[in-house]
């Protein structure tokens, strides 16, 4: 049994176990232990890949290289830290009477099921299985979005289900077209023509017209899941109505996985087309998402909705950067993926505590966090400062790299980028300031909060901003070379 098998099996078995005992007090602990175990094995696997290069599993079902192994580790890490936060948080929700035991069991088992689906999507070598895993990631989370069974949450889950389902169906059609192109070239009757490694080796000979048509469908399909404007309508709803740990993993991880799928396919299409069509499309969609989401930040009334728009904004920026291509932009995008995941999940964890403290998610009812409970107030403030791209946090570094890359190849695009940063910054801070500094409403009591995951995440982001450790830099560099063919260092 390889490390990869263990990494994949542990959330699967953990999920099945939690189907039976997820409602007991021990369920939350099992969730944490499984998360920790997955993280440790994924880290071991990452070190192995780092030392020995890409590995193809026997049977060629799984392919692990520098690009996906770092996302696997990130996914396992954020899944683990969020599970630490989720245990007391969900207990508290049960005590408040918002959840029954049965739903807690559903929550815990689906949490691990979701982890499994994401790890499968990241590690599989088969484009079809990639699609199946992405769809499975939707299916495992759709009932979690409606976990509270309020009319709003049911509406949000329905939108999430329908929009992501229809969206991702387009991606399946794109996958069929890729398969069609491959069969034309490599001959039918083989069962390996949908493997990414096989396709990548022969990408240059695939028919460009079919692949460009395929990429449009793939971009719409996986782009829906990334949350690109105008396909983003499900995202703020799903992220704001579900339980907060779910918002943290949806924003921090699921969007990354969808973007990962898109970038993998772009690598194929680029090799076949020999033009920048895929890149241009991604740049366009990404930039529009970045700008529009920044504007939407200004008119939010719900704290979780606001931060989900911030996720759209950052995903747009990453899509733009991957579309821009070139070593520097790709390196920046990979770094941005990491720091955004860490920061955004930390923010959502803090937001969860803040809304338990205030008893509502409405921004105008959340006041005086620093006075009532300094840990939460400062956590929210520092997290938001980090996500808005202030130095010395890692988001600043990656955004600076992206800006530099833009200056080099598309100087005039630096203008909308800078404006977008400013608009998003203003949108976040006009809401943030009264929430953390304002006068707390009378009788507001501190809640039991576990801020350790937040501190760990923010410390990591700070570390990445001050100095990227050399092993991590080389790791990103390996991934950059894979994606863009050149090294930024």
């Amino acid at each position, binding site marked *: 049994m390889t490390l990869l098998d263990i990494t994949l099996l542990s959330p699967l078995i953990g999920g099945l176990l939690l189907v039976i005992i997820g409602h007991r007090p021990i369920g939350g602990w099992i969730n944490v232990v499984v998360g920790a175990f997955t993280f440790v094995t994924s880290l071991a696997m990452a070190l192995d890949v780092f030392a020995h290069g890409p590995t193809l599993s026997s049977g060629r079902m799984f392919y692990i290289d520098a690009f996906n192994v770092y996302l696997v580790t990130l996914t396992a890490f954020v899944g683990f830290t969020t599970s630490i936060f989720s245990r007391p948080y969900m207990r508290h929700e049960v005590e408040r009477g918002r959840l029954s035991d049965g739903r807690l069991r559903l929550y815990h088992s689906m949490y691990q099921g979701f982890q499994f689906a994401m790890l499968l999507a990241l590690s599989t070598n088969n484009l*079809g299985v990639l699609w199946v895993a992405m769809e499975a990631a939707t299916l495992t989370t759709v009932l979690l979005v409606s976990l509270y069974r309020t*009319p709003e949450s049911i509406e949000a889950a329905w939108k999430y289900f329908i929009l992501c389902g229809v969206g991702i169906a387009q991606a399946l059609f794109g996958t069929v077209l890729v398969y069609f192109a491959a069969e034309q070239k490599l001959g039918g009757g083989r069962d390996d023509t949908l493997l990414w490694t096989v396709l990548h080796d022969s990408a240059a000979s695939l028919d460009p017209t079919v692949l460009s048509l395929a990429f449009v469908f793939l971009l719409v399909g996986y782009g829906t899941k990334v949350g690109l404007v105008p396909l983003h309508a499900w995202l703020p709803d799903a992220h704001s109505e579900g339980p907060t740990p779910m918002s943290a993993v949806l924003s921090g991880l699921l969007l990354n996985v969808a973007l990962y799928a898109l970038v993998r396919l772009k690598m194929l299409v680029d090799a076949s087309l020999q033009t920048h069509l895929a890149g241009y499309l991604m740049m366009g969609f990404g930039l529009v998402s970045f700008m529009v989401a920044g504007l939407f930040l200004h008119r939010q009334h719900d704290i979780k909705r606001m931060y989900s728009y911030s996720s759209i904004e950052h995903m747009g920026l990453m899509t733009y950067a991957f579309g821009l291509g070139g070593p520097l932009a790709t390196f920046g995008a990979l770094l941005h993926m990491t720091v955004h995941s860490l920061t955004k999940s930390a923010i959502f964890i803090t937001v969860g505590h803040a809304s338990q403290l205030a008893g*509502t998610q409405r921004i105008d009812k959340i006041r005086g966090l620093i006075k009532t409970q300094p840990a939460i107030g400062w956590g929210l403030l520092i997290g938001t400062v980090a996500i808005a791209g202030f130095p010395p946090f890692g988001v600043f570094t990656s955004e600076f790299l992206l800006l530099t890359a833009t200056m080099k190849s598309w100087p005039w695009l630096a203008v909308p980028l800078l404006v977008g940063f400013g608009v998003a910054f203003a949108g976040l801070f006009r809401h943030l300031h009264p929430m953390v500094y304002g006068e707390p409403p009378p009788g507001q009591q501190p809640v039991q909060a576990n801020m350790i995951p937040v501190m760990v995440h923010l410390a990591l982001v700070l570390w990445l901003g001050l100095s990227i450790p050399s092993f991590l830099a080389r790791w990103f560099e390996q991934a950059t070379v894979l994606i863009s063919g050149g090294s930024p260092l």
Partner: protein
Amino acid sequence: MTELSQLSLYNQAIILFAALVLFTSFIMLAQARMLPMIFAFAWQGMLLAVVTALVALVSGHPHLYISAALTVALKVFLIPWLLYRLAVKLNIHLEAEAIKYPSLLLLAGAGLVIFSYYVALPIVHLSGLATRNTIAVSIAVVLLGMLLMIARKKAVAQVIGFMSIENGLFFSAVVSTYGMPLIVELGVAFDVLVAAILFGVFFFHMSESFDSLDVDRLTRLSEVHESLFPPEEGASEEERP
């Protein structure tokens, strides 16, 4: 370009079935009552299964028999039966939905078919007449499914639209590439099954929370709404203990 009559019997049969699949899509689009709509969906599944078996027979891809069997089990029996049972249980099986502008809807559908042929045009030089038609038809079935979901307000109709999109995708995979690899087809079938069950769960939640399965009622979460009625929402928040 080859004339239809010069094609092999197999290709003619494939084109015939493609036309029938497209026809069932139009039936679903225009059918206002729930039960006939569910039956039309089951018929589309049946046609897909027949096409799959035919392709398996002629091309000698034995794994397609498994796909055909899966299609019969899932799309002809299980999912329509689930939908039927839910419709009876929620007492909506006799309801008819008032479709706005039915003729316009059908014309839009016809427009989408033409558009699909246009989209499939670049693939022409890669393949024969039969494949070109079938790819265009499968794109059309996907787009018609989306049109159905946009035009109809009943949750059941939306689910049928959703599932018929999946039918279109399945059809394209069978006729253009002799199906996807078996593991992918099994995975997709599993996802579809889970999705169908989840839809059933949602029907109950929706009818409990909204007293209807009209998706028009789902208007609580939108940017426009929130900015139009902020004081109301604030007031309801205050009433909460």
